[in-house]
């Protein structure tokens, strides 16, 4: 049990550790107050390559996305004839037409809506169901508890490919192919092993005394779960929600298989991959379509980066 506490506090203390380290690194070993110009110059020369290397790395990772963004605002004939970097020369020629075109004729508006329709329930369902299971796993005793949990750990890495054919057959029989309900259930099930694993780690660490006093006050399990367990697990749930939402929003394979490529229910990933195959060269539309699909994840990324990092850390220090 103890290692889990340790991991979690480690993650939570990450920030303070960061500060500590940077402070140490930045106060040059000795007499900080006697810094003169030549010392500063030496420091700059010594650290110059470091800053340069980081700059190059950031550039490498930023440039591809930036090129896409710029191109999506350029008129089609220019996108096809000159490089995107040329657009910063006067006269500027930027336009919103590509976005209008893709949203009105390219089925993208519908797909955006579909992506939301798929991703929201597919995030809420696994988290709630996993929280039920995690609560039982951590605070109730039953035969086979440890075996079931080990099985869950095993299921964490089972490739989705192993499940596609049998599940598709079940769906065909129940007429769930091409329906939102079908894909919600599929995404829920696929997300469950990780969700139960992560929530159990967290819920299992809550102090037992709060449960005891709640029971003494006459609360039942329903009250305790919704009034005590869920609210106190919010940090873990936020990580999980960010993760699961991004995973479902960005998923191609599951949608491709269970939604059968019908445009009526296709999420953006499916629509864009069809665009890639059919247009070949229609870069002004592809770039704007891709950017529409990236807006929400990028906003989520920058506002919830903390939870994303925390989720990755707890998930990866698995066991």
């Amino acid at each position, binding site marked *: *049990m103890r*290692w889990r506490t340790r991991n979690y506090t480690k993650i939570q203390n*990450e920030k303070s*550790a*960061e500060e500590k*380290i940077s402070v*140490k690194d930045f106060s040059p070993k000795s007499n900080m107050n006697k810094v003169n110009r030549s010392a500063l110059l030496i420091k700059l020369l010594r650290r110059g390559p470091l800053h340069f290397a*980081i700059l190059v*790395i950031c550039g490498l*990772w*930023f440039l*591809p*996305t930036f090129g896409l963004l710029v191109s999506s605002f350029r008129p089609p004939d220019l996108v096809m004839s*000159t490089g995107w*970097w040329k657009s910063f020369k006067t006269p500027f020629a930027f336009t919103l037409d590509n976005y209008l075109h893709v949203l009105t004729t390219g089925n993208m508006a*519908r797909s955006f809506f579909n992506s939301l*329709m798929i991703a929201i*329930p597919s995030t*809420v*369902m696994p988290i709630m*169901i996993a929280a039920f*299971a995690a609560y*039982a796993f951590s605070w*109730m005793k*039953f035969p086979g508890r440890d075996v*079931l949990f*080990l099985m869950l750990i095993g*299921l*964490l*890495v*089972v*490739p*989705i490919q*192993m499940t*596609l*054919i049998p*599940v598709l057959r079940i769906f065909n029989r129940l007429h769930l192919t091409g329906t939102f*309900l079908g894909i919600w259930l599929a995404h829920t*099930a696929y997300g469950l092993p990780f969700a*139960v694993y992560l929530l159990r780690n967290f819920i299992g660490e809550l102090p037992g005394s709060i449960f005891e006093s709640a029971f003494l006050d006459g609360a039942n*399990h*329903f009250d305790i779960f*919704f009034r005590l367990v869920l609210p106190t697990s919010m940090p873990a749930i936020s990580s999980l929600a960010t993760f699961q939402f991004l995973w479902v929003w*960005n*998923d*191609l*394979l599951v949608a491709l*298989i269970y939604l059968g490529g019908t445009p009526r229910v296709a999420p*953006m990933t499916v629509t864009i991959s069809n665009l*890639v195959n059919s247009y070949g060269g229609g870069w002004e539309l592809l*770039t704007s379509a*891709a950017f529409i*699909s*990236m807006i929400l994840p*990028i906003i989520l*990324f920058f506002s919830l980066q903390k939870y994303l990092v925390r989720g*990755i850390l707890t998930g*990866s220090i*698995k*066991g």
Partner: protein
Amino acid sequence: MNIRVIALMIGAVAGVPVVLILYSFIIEKLVEKLNPGLQKKLRPWFWIIPAFSLLAVFLIYPVINTVILSFKNADSTEFIGIKNYLYVFTNSTMLIALRNNLLWLVIFTLFTVTLGLLIAVLTDRVKYESVAKAFVFMPMAISFVAAGVIWKFMYEYRPKGAPQIGTLNAILTTTLPGFEPKAWLFDPAINNFALIAVGIWIWTGFCMVILSAGLKGIPDSVIEAAKIDGAGEWRIFWRITIPLMKSTITVVATTMVINVLKIFDIVYVMTNGNLNTEVIANRMYKEMFSFRDFGRASAIATVLLIAITPMMLINIKRFGQRR
């Protein structure tokens, strides 16, 4: 799509949590009616049943079923022994797919982990660490499909003499005199590496985040002690940082191996496995949807599972140890 459909859908979205809350409320009311001994016995099962029934239907049963299907013919009507597996290991396209997955496994894992570690170590020394890391981490948030579009545009090729609109060819032709523009995704000598580079671009951030946390976990006192003993940066890195981070590096590398074996979206979007870029997961999709051969598709999936099993055992073992 009219207003009614939208209303219906929003209703469904809101209805999902309501159904789940009702479920737990009703079962708790029912269980409370039982005598205390029975309550204690039955209650846990009601709380785990939703999760485990979904897992049974969507993961456990299908895995068993797929293994059985892999010994059957295309429409699963009769058993044909190991013919499907012979196909997996003898068919020329499958052999290319297996070779490519191996190529992915080695290069992708090596580069994501090494670059992730390098970036974690470098950014650890500057004040703008979090900003720099966000740049590298960002591709994790977008879909592989979007990343595929981004990089298809990076790799865009125009014949020599025409203005290059692909960033990569443009940079190389202007900076290196005499460089011939390359069709990165079409030239069989380089297209696999071009695809792997996209994977590295996406996943390095993931490795960096975990490795960076591992790096911060090394106590300052250890580093300080080494410095006092006169160890240089280089020596500290190889003799202290790397050994202390060994378990973190193993975890990251295992995760990358699991990912890379399942790699699908990038290949599907960028080349669809043409021109010698096929990978196992994409081949499985094709067997399933284009050729309708469920036996072969199942055999491919099973091979994938077998390749991943060692990683699964490592996971279970590590979990058992630490507990």
